[in-house]
């Protein structure tokens, strides 16, 4: 209920065009599937819950009877797991302490990948990371983890001393401390969440523009506009392939940066 109030205060866009349906105000976008009391279930929640169920079934089914000669499912799962364990965790965190964090990194990567790929899956077509709440939740997990790991290793006072790299002249230390503080506590979580959100939001909107715009062109009166619908749909196909690449890349980069922040907190000196 309070979200609608917030949305109406944010929706201070005065319509400057003649049409009455453009631009839409934020309240139009709050369309939950159903509400139980004050809890609303939206489409995106259903997609995320479905992705969790799908992942749980896939991972359990492919590793249940793990044999030395793997089946196809086990081979695929082990391929992805090995990619995260060796390529991301061991490289970014170091070979001594990386095993502790591989479950978190693997879970992040697979969860984000599946949810991103739902953006181009037919009949689903909802990249759940394009709603800002989900990247924020994942970023909060990574944020708590890398600060806790740093404080565990260096102690609370030592953690703030760790923020200043060694070998600096004394007069510059306060500035560096402020900069590093802002980086560690504000910039890193903000950019981590906004990067994932922005890429998924922008990609989804691109696809919507080309597909729905093509449909609108197709329904126009003049023949020329009807013909331009076909290149629009061809571009939509090309952008779907590009979007698949971007989705995989964003899942990989989120995991890579999470591993990098954890590794950075574990290193002995800055």
């Amino acid at each position, binding site marked *: 209920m309070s979200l609608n109030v917030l949305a109406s205060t944010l929706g201070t866009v005065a319509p*400057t065009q003649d049409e009455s349906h453009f631009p839409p105000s934020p309240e139009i976008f709050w369309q939950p599937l159903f509400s139980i009391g004050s809890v609303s279930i939206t489409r995106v929640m259903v997609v995320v819950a479905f992705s969790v169920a799908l992942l749980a079934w896939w991972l359990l089914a492919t590793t249940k009877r793990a044999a030395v000669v793997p089946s196809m499912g086990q081979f695929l799962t082990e391929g992805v797991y090995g990619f995260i364990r060796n*390529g*991301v965790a061991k*490289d970014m965190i170091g070979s001594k302490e990386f095993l502790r964090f591989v479950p978190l990194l693997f879970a992040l990567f697979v969860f984000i990948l599946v949810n991103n790929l739902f953006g181009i899956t037919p009949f689903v077509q909802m990249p759940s990371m394009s709603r800002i709440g989900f990247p924020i939740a994942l970023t909060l997990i990574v944020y708590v983890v890398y600060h806790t790991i740093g404080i565990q290793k260096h102690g609370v006072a030592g953690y703030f001393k760790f923020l200043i790299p060694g070998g600096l002249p004394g007069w510059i230390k306060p500035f560096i401390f402020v900069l590093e503080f802002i980086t560690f506590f504000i910039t890193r979580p903000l*950019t981590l969440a*906004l*990067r994932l*959100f*922005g*890429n998924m*939001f*922008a990609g989804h909107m691109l696809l919507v523009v080309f597909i729905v715009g093509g449909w609108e062109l197709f329904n126009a009166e003049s023949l020329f506009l009807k013909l331009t619908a076909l290149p629009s749909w061809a571009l939509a196909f090309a952008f779907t392939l590009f979007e698949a690449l971007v989705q995989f*890349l*964003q899942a*990989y*980069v989120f995991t*890579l*940066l999470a591993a*990098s922040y954890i590794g950075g907190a574990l290193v002995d000196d800055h």
Partner: protein
Amino acid sequence: MEGNLSLVGYGLATIGPAIAIGLIFAAYINGVARQPESGRLLQPIAILGFALAEALAIFGLVLFFL
């Protein structure tokens, strides 16, 4: 002439990340051209640099809508 000034701002904001991504991948191609075996080693660094530079372009796009 009507329009949105933030769209002009977004257009200007894409110059920086575009140059940055070009520089990053130019460095990656140079490194792999000098020593082809280093491709596997340099690839995570190139992807990391690309994502960090593209984040700024994405901020511009997101802030345009705010």
